[in-house]
């Protein structure tokens, strides 16, 4: 790595700083936990119970079917079979025996189709313990579907489609309207919030790192062999690379979960099929692209600001106070987020989302929700890039003077002087 980017033959100190920040952080227990542990816990929390119940219900999945209607038995048996049940047909006279088997737990349940099943979709379910709502729903739908199919056999009605809830194709002519009910905006809201959290976490990590070097004075040794901007740049890039690594791992785990765990869960619990529609609500690839772009923009802006805050303080307590103005800047978009999502096309939303300090969260939400025209997204990215340069210029100057300064925290007037003098 250093050989590629070195100046002449000497390794570049910036690479050394980047590597140190990256390796030290990635190796920490906290990183391992947050990066691998959290997603595994979430996936595990969702998948394990499904898996467990599917194991325990293997016996319970057998349904004894008694058909008193004399018409629907085959159709119901077929639907239940497709839904993962083992169906065992029995004659009416065997009902008492079947009840006994259910009571002993040798079969899961007994389903009796009433004589009025064809006209009223009436049936009786006998099971040892009360069946889950989901199971009741599945069995009920199987009966309804069989009845309707029989009644409408000579028409071209697709009962399965109608029963599946029909189809409503939504076409919007003037862009997305916004609001939490819109799945794209729900994803935008969640995404924005996660963005805010990780931008803040990593920007504050930069501040802490600057502060650590300053308070333990190792910075005097480090700056005897590189310029302050090199140290600041290396630190920001190194910590940012850790953030990107974490995002990549999270995205990978999510993809893996969708690719393996979800189908496995569906196999185990066919009645979850309805939930599988959730898959259509999942964000498309552009979500991740926007996420990375706006993470980089937000991270570079705020980490540079936090680096400057760290450089002008001498202790954690001082930094707590000094970061207040930056904190206000990053919190404004969080408060504005709900409003922007409810009214993504309102002039105020457009203006706020174009403010570079807010764009990482607000323009992200509008872009993911599909409410921002491409030119606005492009403009916000350009403005963010320019702001990164401006913030780097200002923060670099504050950092340069502040990092070796001890004693009292500078006043605003002193900061202004640092900017002009440097």
């Amino acid at each position, binding site marked *: 790595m250093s050989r590629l980017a070195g100046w002449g033959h000497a390794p570049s100190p910036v690479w050394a700083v980047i590597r140190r920040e990256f390796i030290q952080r990635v190796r920490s227990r906290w990183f391992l936990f947050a990066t691998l542990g959290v997603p595994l816990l979430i996936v595990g929390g969702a998948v394990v119970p499904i898996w467990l119940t599917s194991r325990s219900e293997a016996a319970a999945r057998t349904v004894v079917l008694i058909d008193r209607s004399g018409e629907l038995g085959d159709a119901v048996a077929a639907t239940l079979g497709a839904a993962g049940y083992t169906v065992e047909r029995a004659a009416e006279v065997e009902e008492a025996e079947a009840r006994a088997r259910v009571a002993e737990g040798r079969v899961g349940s007994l389903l009796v189709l009433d004589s009025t099943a064809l006209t009223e979709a009436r049936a009786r379910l006998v099971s040892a313990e009360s069946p889950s709502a989901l199971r009741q729903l599945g069995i009920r739908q199987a009966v309804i579907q069989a009845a309707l199919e029989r009644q409408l056999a000579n028409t071209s009605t697709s009962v399965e489609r109608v029963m599946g809830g029909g189809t409503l194709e939504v076409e919007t002519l003037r862009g997305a309207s916004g609001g939490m009910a819109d799945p794209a905006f729900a994803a935008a809201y969640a995404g924005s919030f996660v963005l805010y959290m990780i931008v803040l976490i990593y920007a504050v990590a930069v501040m802490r790192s600057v502060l650590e070097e300053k308070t333990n004075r190792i910075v005097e040794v480090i700056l005897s062999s590189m*310029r302050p901007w090199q140290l600041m740049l290396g630190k920001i890039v190194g910590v940012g690379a850790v953030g990107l690594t974490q995002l990549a791992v999270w995205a990978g785990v999510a993809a893996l979960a969708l690719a393996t765990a979800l189908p496995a869960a569906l196999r185990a619990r066919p009645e979850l099929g309805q939930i599988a529609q959730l898959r259509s609500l999942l964000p498309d690839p552009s979500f991740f692209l926007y996420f990375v772009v706006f993470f980089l923009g937000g991270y570079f802006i705020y980490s540079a600001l936090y680096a400057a805050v760290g450089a002008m303080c001498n202790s954690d307590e001082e930094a707590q106070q000094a970061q207040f103005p930056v904190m206000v800047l990053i919190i404004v978009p969080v408060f504005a987020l709900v409003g922007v999502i409810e009214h993504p096309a309102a002039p105020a939303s457009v203006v706020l989302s174009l403010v570079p300090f807010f764009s990482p969260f607000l323009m992200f939400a509008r872009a993911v929700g599909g409410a921002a025209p491409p030119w606005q997204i492009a403009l916000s990215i350009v403005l963010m890039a320019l702001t990164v340069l401006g913030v780097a210029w200002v923060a670099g100057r504050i950092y340069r003077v502040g990092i070796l300064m001890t004693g009292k925290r500078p006043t605003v007037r002193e900061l202004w002087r640092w900017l002009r003098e440097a």
Partner: protein
Amino acid sequence: MTDLVVGLNGVTKQFGRHTAVDGLDLNVPRGSIYGLLGPNGSGKTTTIRMIMGILRPDEGRVALFGGDPVESARRRVGYLPEERGVYRRMKVRELLVFLAEIRGVPRPLGRRRALAWLDRLELSGWTDRKVEDLSKGMQQKVQFIATVLHEPELLILDEPFAGLDPINQDVLEGIVLDFHRRGATVLFSTHLMDQAERLCQRVCLISRGRCVLDGELREIKRRERKGVVAVAFEGPDGWLDGPEVIGREVAPDGAHLVLGEGADHQAILRRAVASGAVIHRFELVEPRLHEIFVRYAGPRGGG
């Protein structure tokens, strides 16, 4: 003119109303071991920080290897600051490799050198331990290694021996002398006069931000011969106090008296005889650095 590694010319640095360094001239010739001596708060650390470009002088000029103290010059220096900093959570070897790398030592070479130095300072068992697991003395040795890993031409050490036990002081002294033998220049500050006396060829004595005495140690001692009287006596000792005496060190068999500038030692002898003391010894001796220090930097000294 000799080749100067460090040159300060009329350098002044103020912090608010307090003048920390006041018109200081300092010239460190190549290949010398130079001691920056002075009491606490005399401006030694401020001076060193200006040489390292950490502080900018308000007036005057600082030259490092003949130019401004920019990074390319500072990288040739092994700098040990007074306030020692480490990354506490890094492993010892990683810290050393990192600090060598930012001064241009490729990683494999840095690793080899780090292991060799850790071995030499009897820290080889701690290579892969975290810095925070080390004792303070061990951390100080690690910091010292970090200072010399890139084989600098100039060592600038701010109070390098403070807080070390005598055995480790000797070890580090040996390493400093080793570097000097191989051609490096050494500039270090201390208020431990015995150490300075053993190590230094040249000294600059700073008091209240000014250089009050500067030159070759041997020369200075010769010049200051009249400044110290060794006495051995019986009887009253009231005569030891007088306007000529600005410092004294009492030993079981007598005392060393440090005399002020231009003091008349005969006056002391007359007073001793008059007091009735029996004088066994009254001799002008070559002063120890400690005594010169007291003479120039003490409360009534020439600062």
